[in-house]
């Protein structure tokens, strides 16, 4: 068992350090002989055991004796640990490639490949922008009436639903990737503003009315809102400037915002969004599969 363990460990180490390659070859020879039902007569195990026990002997006679006496047992334990570690490392790599997180889809635990958790960061619902917590496994589009939301319907088989907040840096990080995805692949696109940052509630009515007033201009508007300076989002004059620049009738928008029917429409959207079990932005559904936080582009692309 020790030879197999040593072969695995030394094999990995020797990829990075040539000094261990001869030992790895010796371990391989030993493993090969065992596999082919021949005795391992290379003395590799004895050599390594003596070296390890010798090192331990310099520290503690007692510990060295225990190690020497139970060397095979320790080998088994380390071997199983190594196999489990390799399995989990492989699973982590797979998850990272597939979902942008070592721990699986929307899992926020520590990931060595994304140590700061950038791929899972969200702006929490009901709080100022920051790390949110919730149950990633229950985000869903089931029962959600998407017809209430602005939709760029191109009759494609795939649908991307982006629920984000204009001022959320993680929504803003994901947005260019979603844009790229839509540019490179045919997909219907649904956008919903879900305010999680201070002052963003004020934009709910405005963006609702803007969509009502001119659905075509709406997509240019959200593009501007998601890319402009965040501080400008709470500056009415600057927002009005953008609207005017895009060709909106600002006075009509103001009137729309004051209309009680707007509140009804906005509330209806809000109720639908809550059905997704959203707990932070961005929440992106690609063909109904929910992704919380900005993922690498490959993850979005893979889901189409």
């Amino acid at each position: 068992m020790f030879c197999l363990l040593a072969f695995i460990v030394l094999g990995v180490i020797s990829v990075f350090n040539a000094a261990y390659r001869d030992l790895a070859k010796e371990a391989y020879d030993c493993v090969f002989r065992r596999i082919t039902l021949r005795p391992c007569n290379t003395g590799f195990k004895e050599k390594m055991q003596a070296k390890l026990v010798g090192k331990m002997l310099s520290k503690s006679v007692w510990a060295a004796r225990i190690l020497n006496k139970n060397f095979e047992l320790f080998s088994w334990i380390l071997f199983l640990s190594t196999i489990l570690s390799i399995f989990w490392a492989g699973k982590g790599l797979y998850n990272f490639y597939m979902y942008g997180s070592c721990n699986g889809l929307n899992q926020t635990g520590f990931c060595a490949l994304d140590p700061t958790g950038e791929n899972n960061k969200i702006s929490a619902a009901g709080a100022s922008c920051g790390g949110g917590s919730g149950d990633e496994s229950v985000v869903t589009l089931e029962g959600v009436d998407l017809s209430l939301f602005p939709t760029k319907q191109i009759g494609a088989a795939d649908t991307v639903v982006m629920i984000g907040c204009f001022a959320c840096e993680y929504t803003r990080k994901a947005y260019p990737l979603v844009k790229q995805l839509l540019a490179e692949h045919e997909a219907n696109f649904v956008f919903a503003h879900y305010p999680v940052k201070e002052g963003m509630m004020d934009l709910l009515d405005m963006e609702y009315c803007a969509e009502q007033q001119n659905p075509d201009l709406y997509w240019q508007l959200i593009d501007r809102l998601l890319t402009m300076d965040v501080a400008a989002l709470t500056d009415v004059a600057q927002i009005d400037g953008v609207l005017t620049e895009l060709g909106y009738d600002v006075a009509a928008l103001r009137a729309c915002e004051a209309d009680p029917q707007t509140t009804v429409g906005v509330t209806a959207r809000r109720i639908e969004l809550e059905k997704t079990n959203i707990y932070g932005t961005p929440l992106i559904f690609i063909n109904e599969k929910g992704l919380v936080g900005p993922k690498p582009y490959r993850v979005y692309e893979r889901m189409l």
Partner: protein
Amino acid sequence: MTDSYRADFQILEGDALIYFDNACQTLRPKQVLSAMNEYYEQYPACGGRSMHRLAARVSQQVDQARARIARFIDARDKKEIVFTRNTTEGINLVAHSLGLRAGDVVITSDKEHNSNLIPWQVLQQKLGIKHVIVATDQDGLLDLEAYQHALTQGVALVSMGYVSNLDGVAQPVERIIQLAHAAGAKVLLDGAQAVPHHKLSVTQLDVDFLAFSGHKMLGPSGIGVLYGKSQLLAELEPFLVGGDTVAFSTYTSHEFLAAPEKFEAGLQDYAGIIGLGAAVAYLEQVGFDAIVARELELNQFLTKELTTIKGLHLIGPQDPSLRSGIISFYVDGKDHHKIALMLDEVAGICVRSGQHCVHSWFHDRRLAGSVRASVYFYNTLAEAEVFVTQLRKVLSVL
């Protein structure tokens, strides 16, 4: 005493290393290294062939080394010194040049180094010579009665290790040679473990051939010596032939030089030869009296201490004075390789483990191998004490 010489061995500076593997090869003093460096730095040329000043100096230095080595073993003539790569090559030279034929008998003991076993096995298979092995007794000494009996079979050559690398036991070579000569046989001695450790006179021994290595006597590796009586060397056919072995050649014929040149084919290891000359000079300076005394002192101490360890068995006689600087042992239930590796790991103690190229002896006795500690004049009692302490520690764990 010999402690003052430790300063000449750079590797022994500090306490990081205890070198007890001198039977394999010894360390080299700075004088040997300097002599070799001097060759490479100041006159790195061909000896004997070119006529320029550098070549002349090489020839002179090689000649001086040859003469010094001849004096060192008390040879009558420096031309009796043939440079080889090592003892093994010296033995092979004799084996293949002596003109042995089918039916010729070659005698060896039962604990020869592979270098003095395999050549005869090969000749037995190739030429049909008869290889007779004479047993040794419990103390590692040749059974002289059996030997005398073997000599009655029309023996061509007795090829014997003088001092065994297994147990350090010196054979009664004077008697062995007398008996062999009386029976009309020639004698080749494997002197690898003898020449570095005690004064030896080939003239007094009247031995026909003596092979030994530089690396076991402070000299460089890759250089060795075959001594042969002038008359015998003249009769031997060269083993390797080519450049520097002939005085003259045509497209169809050649005329060999006299010994030793006819045996030294190709460009020689000049640095090695010069280094070996320096090593001999160094050994002469230390003196064999001091060397023998230090080895005995250490072996007595080690023997006394090791024989108190339960389950430890010494190979060879219990009397340390009969085992030169070698202490070879095995311990019941303990792996010899592990012992050696752990001694190295724990305290930087270098010893040999395994069958020491005497596989046949171990195989015959169904022993896996042994640990061999071999001391030389630069080793100290303090080192021997550390060795014993650490060995006990290692054995307590294994």
